């Protein structure tokens, strides 16, 4: 395997791919660019700022 004629091409393709993925991880998807979510923002997303009580409603058909 170590002398297979395709080794240079496979190695080049693998290296380019890993560099692109690493660059994406560092410059596009880094923790700095990710939205930060905590319990408060999750609350805002799920139940919002509203504190109104729901109207009484039967849960049974």
């Amino acid at each position: 395997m170590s002398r297979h004629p395709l080794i240079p091409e496979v190695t080049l393709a693998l290296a380019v791919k890993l560099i692109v993925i690493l660059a994406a991880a560092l410059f596009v998807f880094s923790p700095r660019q990710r939205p930060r979510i905590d319990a408060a923002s999750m609350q805002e997303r799920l139940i919002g700022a509203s504190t109104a009580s729901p109207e009484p409603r039967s849960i049974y058909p």
Partner: protein
Amino acid sequence: MSTAMDVVQLSRLQFGLTAMYHFLFVPLTLGLSILLGIMESVYVMTGKEVWRQATKFWGVLFGINFAMGVATGITMEFQFGMNWAYYSHYVGDIFGAPLAIEGLMAFFLEATFVGLFFFGWDRLSKVAHLGVTWLVAIGSNLSALWILVANGWMLHPVGAHFNPDTMRMEVTDFGEIIFNIVAQEKFVHTVSAGYVTGAMFVASISAIYLLLGKHVEIARRSITVAVSFGIASALSVVVLGDASGYTATDTQRMKIASIEAMWETEPPPASFTLFGLPNQATHRTEYALRIPWVLGLITTHSIDETVPGITDLVQHNEDHILSGLLAYSALEKLRANRNDPNARAELDQYIGELGYALLLKQIRPDIENATDAEISKAAWGTVPNVALLFWVFRLMVGLGFYFIFLFGLAFYLTSTGRLLKARWLLWLLAFSLPLPWIAAESGWIVAEVGRQPWVVEGVLPTFLAVSSITANNVLVTLFGFIGFYSTLLIVEIYLMIKAIRLGPGHIVTQPRTKELPAASGAE
């Protein structure tokens, strides 16, 4: 495009395309690794050099696939953080664990032994190298296990509960998550599909060699192993798919009803719609061609159990939404006062329905004041794309039965020594090469589109799981991924074709290894 598609659709498209691209490599890795183990086992048992050369040749193709596929899945983890930040916070405690284990255990096991496989031929004993090859196969399959444990939890969330203080789901029983029936059935079904892919790959390329009269000694041995492994795998994938469907009748009833375009509940045993044109607007299936009893028998394994139809399930989901509103109200009170024991008790009682109430958020923000019409609309929103599921499922199942027929026939002709003369079947095998990938990708579409509108079934709607980012943010990375992955795919196909054209004769053995007389003569 950004006006036509919102962040949810774009994020789903991006994740779907990335996952489907990644899954072009995975099934071949799963199947080919086992076939390498089988071929090398024959080499170790018989001592015949031709099997060693066959293992090395298919190992080269395995290596190209592994090199081009490795790390293509990691971009999905990037997306969890960027596009699916709310999802990651809400269920990261559960979802993150199997992904981390996959990375730490199976990936390192797999990657380490892949290196030993390629560079250990003349450094390890025969038996030690065989052990390495099997560890590559086990490592690959373990990777799949952990990913499917995570995915299975999204389809059937067990072993976790919602913590209102941290506003996230937390693990209560990790064993329950690992041994989740949906995950386990999905695992065996998926790896079997991978084995079919590996078998078809070896059989198709061997068939091409035989048709061209090239590398005949290796090709005829390889095709024998491939069709034997292929028939066992094709039977497994259909039987295990049936088991998945049986379980889904309990755990994902809307998905089953949608796959079957079954709008109304029928008296048991339900009929199977072989053909039809499902119409989501009218809730009817036009020109339906039904076979009595078959669906009931397949999905319940009985003649007296009911398979609920979509309309009844929607009614049922309206009840879930009403219960969910009580959980929602309790959660609001609890977030305002964490020491409110009544709110906590009420939340505990209805927490399983909270996700259903959240479906209303897509219709209005103050869901407490939702009208009956809005609740009905939200309940109908739990029906996935019926026509897509109906047809893609039939494509997958049709291909599954085709693989049984093809491998069964090829196995019979191999067993009776007539395969090499049946050139029409060799052509059929050659042209069937892309079909396992089409079947596997169809399976993923059924599994993931069928789960909509949920990102975690019954727990978190998809539209609430996406990050608060702009559509343009997603568009930029979407186009980036499409360009990058399309290029990689072209390179992969180019390298594969080049390696296949070079054939086994171009595998240069180490100096202390004897050349293969039989294969050389044949070539």
